[in-house]
């Protein structure tokens, strides 16, 4: 059994347990068995509730039964329905906007454009370059132009159709390489950021040189819960916005600026979030909703259709990457050269930070003494791109791991041996000059993932072969391949950003209330916060509240694999401060020294565990409350050579993939992905497994099917009919061979963020396995059936 598959009630992950392979299905069984034993009222199923136990989410049952209220389920008395008019053109001048007919429709309460915006016209996470409403030009197909509020959603749709916009379409700039030299499509120019990274001896040469060009298509976060929210105006001119987002406070700041209101008058509340993966970092409907509510003086609700959702949020940056690796004959890496171009689309969003990641991590988790990397994020008339799970680390991992395979081939060396030979460790330097520091068990994750035993050969069941339910496979034409990849990424924000999280803990009797604005987007912060409370205060009655933006300070974004560390850290410190106060109160009452006391299951107990006084007696009606602001270690910006201590910490991951390929039809069935991950410490085994399975599968999607197709700036497949994500029949068995627990000295509990890592190395591992099965180069993801079928037919006849 794997460390994750234990059904025992004790914390199932033992730090030093040897890597134990599992039969394909037991990882999933483990999760199910544990949760099916549900009986506790406090959501702690057969566990202590402490750190390290598989505490079940408080909303798990509601979500499973469809009772959970998502932001799309919000409702208020007398509310109106909002709807946005979007540009059909990727590039055009707006000659006029005529809203007269829409305004006159009965039941239409407001039709608003740029001219109605009292505050800033533009917003953005970084540079404020994106208009709330297009004014004289549109720069991408899908850009908002006007917003309507009406008494019925269908009426709102008709009103939007009744707005007449006179466009003068222009030829869109859609090629990211051309963007570097083409006339600017925005006064801020076409280059969001160019990073020149130079490290070591850039003239160094290797005995063996391999070169390749790689491409990554535009992936979408494809969350289930569409963008939605409800804005409720108050008579004092303030507004409450209930919204699904990843970061309440930064939304608030942008919304308030555009509304021309002081931030205190815009109160954001977290509504039920149906997935995020980066797509809710930028604001989408927030300003329009508040503006409509303030104008109509009525609550306004908006829910994106699926098509609008695909057009309304940012996507993963498509990438074009050129690489040249130099190595000595024994496999030691000498130098990596790369040129990375990310298509950021029409507006900046987080492009500048994404290209920084892509550039900093361009060489992979390897010891690379010299490097010359040029990273560009450019502006085009394609849909804006920004944050998505893996954030720049995904694209380059596909390229550098493809290169490592190519290099192993050229050296006639085992690809895993090559990776082990160059694996970075904590005392080595990255190509940014930064010493890795902390913990870097790269060799361990490589070995553990590589050790997984191979699954049984495919049975003859057509459902289990490539093509699945379509039953088009021919057993004789199915070839099995295996592949391997390693990846890594920074945790938390980088480049000198002053990142922090705020939390408040209030203990009243044996009931603790945590207020922290960390956005719960499905990752399990609400569960973790409970565990932290139980661990530090010894109570199991815990209320978690995200408050509103006036009640508590910022918790930062639910992104960058940072909330367990940052908000977990804030909650931990707040709880510790409360514990200290409670213990000194008890010490006073009991006339003992506080060091002789601790907290356990609702009591202050003596050193040897004898209950002395209950928390109810001590604090009921006299609550103890502490607030803290938690910061991580400061980082530095990158200098003009892309050098500097820009990152706080790193986590590492490896995947081994097994695929079956119908080489004639070009169809793929990913059979198994085994993985090992550097997690520092396991806080909640079940939730961690959820992150690993989900992230790994998202990587499978990018490898073989997920792509938002954009032709001449127009998205071709904005629907779940045509934007394909893996189904159960596409999901491989995911086997966790090892969770490496080397505590990060800087992190609360030593735990590293774990949300993004699984999505990084799974894609290159799958493609490597397809290459292994077919012998094809396959330099672009997602790999399409025709790439395999036609490539194979050609190589077969040659």
């Amino acid at each position, binding site marked *: 059994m794997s460390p994750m598959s234990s059904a025992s009630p004790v914390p199932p992950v033992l730090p030093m347990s040897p890597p134990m392979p599992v039969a394909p299905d037991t990882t999933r069984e483990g999760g199910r068995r544990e949760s099916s034993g549900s009986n506790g009222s406090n959501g702690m199923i057969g566990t202590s509730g402490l750190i390290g136990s598989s505490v079940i989410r408080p909303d798990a049952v509601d979500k499973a039964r469809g009772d959970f209220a998502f932001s799309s389920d919000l409702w208020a008395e007398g509310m109106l329905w909002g709807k946005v008019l979007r540009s059909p053109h990727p590039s055009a001048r707006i000659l006029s906007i005529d809203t007269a007919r829409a305004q006159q429709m009965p039941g239409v309460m407001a039709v608003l454009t740029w001219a109605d915006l009292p505050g800033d016209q533009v917003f953005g996470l970084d540079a404020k370059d994106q208009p709330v409403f297009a004014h004289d030009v549109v720069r991408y197909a899908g850009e908002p132009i006007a917003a309507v509020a009406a008494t019925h959603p269908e009426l709102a749709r008709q009103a939007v159709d009744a707005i007449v916009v006179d466009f003068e379409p222009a030829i869109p700039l859609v090629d990211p390489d051309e963007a570097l030299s083409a006339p600017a499509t925005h006064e801020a120019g076409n280059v969001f950021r160019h990073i020149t990274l130079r490290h070591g001896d850039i003239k160094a040469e290797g005995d063996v040189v391999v070169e390749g060009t790689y491409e990554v298509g535009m992936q979408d976060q494809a969350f289930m819960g569409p963008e939605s929210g409800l804005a409720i105006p108050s008579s004092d001119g303030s507004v409450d916005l209930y919204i699904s987002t990843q970061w309440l406070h930064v939304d608030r700041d942008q919304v308030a600026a555009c509304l021309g209101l002081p931030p205190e008058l815009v109160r954001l509340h977290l509504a039920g979030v149906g997935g995020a993966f980066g797509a809710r970092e930028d604001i989408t409907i927030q300003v329009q909703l508040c503006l409509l509510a303030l104008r109509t003086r009525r609550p306004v609700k908006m829910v994106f259709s699926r098509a609008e959702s695909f057009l309304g949020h940012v996507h993963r940056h498509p990438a074009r990457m050129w690489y040249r690796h130099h190595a000595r004959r024994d496999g030691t890496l000498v130098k990596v050269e790369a040129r990375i171009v990310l298509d950021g689309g029409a507006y900046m969003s987080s492009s500048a930070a994404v290209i920084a990641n892509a550039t900093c991590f361009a060489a992979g988790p390897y010891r690379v003494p010299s490097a010359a990397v040029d990273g560009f994020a450019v502006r085009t008339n394609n849909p804006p791109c920004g944050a998505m799970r893996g954030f720049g680390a995904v694209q380059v991992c596909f390229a550098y791991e493809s290169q490592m395979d190519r290099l192993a081939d050229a050296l006639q060396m085992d690809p895993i041996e090559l990776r082990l030979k160059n694996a970075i460790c904590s005392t080595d330097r990255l190509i940014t000059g930064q010493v890795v520091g902390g913990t870097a068990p790269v060799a361990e994750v490589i070995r553990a993932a590589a050790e997984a035993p191979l699954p049984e050969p495919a049975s003859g069941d057509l459902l289990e072969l490539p093509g699945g339910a*379509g039953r*088009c496979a021919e057993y004789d034409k199915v070839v099995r391949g295996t592949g391997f990849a390693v990846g890594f990424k920074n945790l938390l924000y980088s480049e000198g950003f002053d990142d922090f999280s705020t939390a408040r803990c209030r203990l009243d009797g044996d009931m603790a209330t945590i207020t922290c604005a960390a956005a719960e987007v499905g990752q399990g912060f609400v569960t973790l916060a409970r565990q932290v409370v139980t661990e530090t205060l010894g109570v199991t009655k815990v209320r978690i509240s995200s408050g509103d933006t006036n009640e508590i300070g910022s918790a930062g974004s639910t992104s960058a694999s940072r909330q367990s560390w940052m908000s977990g850290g804030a909650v931990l410190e707040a709880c510790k401060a409360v514990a200290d106060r409670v213990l000194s109160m008890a010490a006073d009452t009991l006339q003992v020294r506080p060091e002789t006391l601790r907290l356990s299951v609702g009591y202050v107990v003596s050193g040897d565990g004898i209950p002395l006084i209950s928390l109810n007696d001590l604090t009921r009606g006299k609550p103890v409350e502490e607030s803290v602001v938690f910061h991580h270690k400061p980082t530095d910006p990158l200098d003009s050579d892309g050098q500097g201590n820009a990152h706080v910490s790193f986590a590492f991951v490896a995947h081994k993939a097994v695929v079956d390929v119908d080489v004639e*039809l070009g169809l793929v069935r990913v059979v198994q992905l085994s993985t090992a991950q550097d997690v520092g410490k396991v806080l909640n085994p079940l939730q961690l497994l959820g992150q690993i399975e989900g992230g790994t599968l998202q990587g499978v999607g990018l490898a073989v099917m997920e792509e938002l197709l954009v*032709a001449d700036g127009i998205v071709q497949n904005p629907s779940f009919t045509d934007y394909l994500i893996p189904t*159960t029949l596409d999901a491989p068995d995911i086997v966790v061979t090892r969770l490496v627990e080397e505590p990060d000295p800087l992190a609360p509990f030593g735990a590293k963020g774990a949300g993004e890592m699984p999505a990084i190395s799974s894609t290159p591992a799958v493609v490597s396995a397809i290459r292994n099965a077919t012998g094809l180069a396959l330099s672009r993801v997602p790999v399409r059936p025709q790439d395999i079928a036609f490539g194979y037919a050609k190589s077969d006849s040659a």
Partner: protein
Amino acid sequence: MATMSGIARPVSVEGVLDVLDEDPATQVLAGGTDFMVEVNYGHRKPQSIVALSRVAGMRTWQVVEDHLVIGAGVTYSQVMKEQLADLLPGLAQAARTVGSPQIRNAGTIGGNLGTASPAGDSLPILLALDALVNIRSKHSSRSLRVDEYVIGPKKHALQPGEIIVSVRIPLSDTSQEFLKVGTRNAMVISVAGLALVVDWKSGRVGCGLGSVGPTPIRASEAEAWLAGVIDWENRRIPDRDGYGQEFGRLVARAASPIDDHRSSAAYRSYALSVCGKRAYERIRRQQRQVLPGIVNGE
């Protein structure tokens, strides 16, 4: 805004036909798996609806002499169940390729014909089986072959007031195969689909193609070629080099696929020829081993 005047839920075919006779603009709702998608996208704005779900007579199938009559309201899940799947393995195979379990529980054969999409997965096999579409209105009834019924992309020959009540399929001694290629292992719109039926009793070959032209296509040349090489007396499909390939080539020649965001014309033709070859080989092997049709449904 126009409001909906209501949903009629008759319990008999006659009741449905009465509603349509009174108001031919009334829209027919079966499982709703196409209908509601169109409503959600604003492509369909029904003023009045007649629902078929309570018409018990349309939700069953029966053997009538040497034919099988399948009610228009029969779902994919029903088609995949044993008895029907034994009689029509190719249709059961096609049904298994449709959508997800939820869609197969709701979606009907009548609805697939009603949408008349070139990607409708039941259409190639119905074509290959020589199925007749039984159509009625209050005052008339008629039957059309599938290739007479589908007259263009998502266009069919129904007149106002008419509905499909059933499909009628000759019962015979057949071998059947259905293959569908898509870029996902389940719940995917077909990039190319092929149904092959060899009728040992009548010495006839049927081959229907999906998603490779504006309508489901009959591969007549390929059918004739295969009928010509089969040793009907000994029930043998020749095991000769290049025969499967030739069949695949002829099948692909019947197609007129397009490039779109789901695939390229070149890959569609190619995949079709591979499917033709594989269908040929599967039926040849089945015949030799005298195996019953294999169904992978649950």
